[in-house]
């Protein structure tokens, strides 16, 4: 009898009601059957401890939330950082910052603009422009002081200073601008000078000058480039005060000229390399004495 129910899954099949009738009948006749049945009956009374389903779920939520936050923040931050960087660089590219170049006393500066045009800045001068304007084909810059421009052919190129404007298409010209003094010399091509309501067109060898409130003057000159590029400053019938102003800029000096008529007209040139020589070339024709004390120069009439 025993052998009939000792294959290795017999009891499993019994519990699962998978035994044949014959097997079951013969099994029930054995002594073991009762014992097995008793064990099985007794196990009905067992139970696992209570499982605190909600509490564990809460713990899981806490942990997964904490983990999720840890995981997500870096991704989110990277994306944000990237887009901010992109935004900033785009804004920077589009608006650009103001590019400013300036010279001090006695300095000159040569620079190339974004379109390849060249500028030579004389002493105590500055230019300012927005890079973005230039990339958009808008060639505009602001000038203070004196500059010589060699403009590459292209769209309109304009030089602003207060309410004066020089605009050209491709040429070489010199602009000198002070609050009360404005001078444009055209060395090549054609330039249009706008001073408040007045518009003048200059061709090669022509100059435009406006001093204070006096009527503007047009002049003719022969040089092919400004003298200051060669270390000389030249004037043509210019009031002495502008000559002295220029001298101050070149040498970083202060000039006192108490009893001298600064409206005398001066024609000539002075060197930018030697103060004594320059003072002599200015003072001798006007029969004026000068004395130098470090950076102070006093002019006096005999």
């Amino acid at each position: 009898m025993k052998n009939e129910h000792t294959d290795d899954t017999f009891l499993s099949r019994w519990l699962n009601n998978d035994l044949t009738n014959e097997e079951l009948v013969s099994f029930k006749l054995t002594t073991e059957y009762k014992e097995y049945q008793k064990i099985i009956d007794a196990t009905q009374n067992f139970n696992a401890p209570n499982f605190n389903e909600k509490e564990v779920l809460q713990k899981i939520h806490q942990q997964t939330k904490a983990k999720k936050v840890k995981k997500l923040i870096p991704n989110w931050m990277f994306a944000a950082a990237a887009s901010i960087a992109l935004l900033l660089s785009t804004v920077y590219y589009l608006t650009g910052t103001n590019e400013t170049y300036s010279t001090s006393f006695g300095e000159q500066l040569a620079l190339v603009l974004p379109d390849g045009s060249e500028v030579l800045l004389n002493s105590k001068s500055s230019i300012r422009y927005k890079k973005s304007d230039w990339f958009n084909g808008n060639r505009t810059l602001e000038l203070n002081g004196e500059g010589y421009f060699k403009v590459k052919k292209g769209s309109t190129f304009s030089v602003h200073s207060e309410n004066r404007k020089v605009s050209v298409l491709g040429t070489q010209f010199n602009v000198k601008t002070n609050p009360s003094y404005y001078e444009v010399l055209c060395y090549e091509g054609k330039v249009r000078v706008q001073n408040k309501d007045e518009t003048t067109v200059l061709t090669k060898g022509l100059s435009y000058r406006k001093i204070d409130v006096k009527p503007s003057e047009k002049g003719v000159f022969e040089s092919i480039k400004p003298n200051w590029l060669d270390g000389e400053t030249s004037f043509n019938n210019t009031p002495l005060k502008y000559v002295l102003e220029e001298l101050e800029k070149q040498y970083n000096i202060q000039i006192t000229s108490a009893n001298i008529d600064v409206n005398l007209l001066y024609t000539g040139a002075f060197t930018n390399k030697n103060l004594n020589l320059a003072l002599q070339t200015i003072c001798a024709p006007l029969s004026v004495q000068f004395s130098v004390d470090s950076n102070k120069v006093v002019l006096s009439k005999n």
Partner: protein
Amino acid sequence: MLEKKSVCESSVFEELYSEHSKSLYNFAFYKSGNAAQSEDLVQEAFIKMWNNCAKIIFEKAKSFLFTVTNNLFLNQVAHKKVVLNYNLIGKKESTNESPEFLMEEKEFMNLLQNAIGDLKEGQREVFLLNRIDKKTYKEIAEMLSISVKAVEKRMHLALKQLREKVGNI
């Protein structure tokens, strides 16, 4: 049309939790005999599922949970000999049985508990999942990633061994 459920959706996650957490807990308890440890195992298994939710398809979530619980358990304990204390339910409030019979009955239950505690882990979990949780052999086989035949063998051996220990009473 087949609707694909993503384990990463919290509603799906909750559904899996309410469906399986209790049997997972019991499973862990039949292995360890330690209620607190079992809770931790359930917790860890579900957290693991959540963290890997993108890699788990809904249909495999259940077997993932049981496999992970099993592995976590194996990692955690250097097995100590577990003595299980099973709660008794269905105790009759009043009875007309004789005191001797009740004494014998109690002794038998204690013996049976110890015998179950002494079973090999594999046999014990199969036996209790079937007897207490009323899981079919097929379900148990899926949980443990073993064949139905293997479950049946373990069940048979478990019962046989229990009888050898408590059968004489």
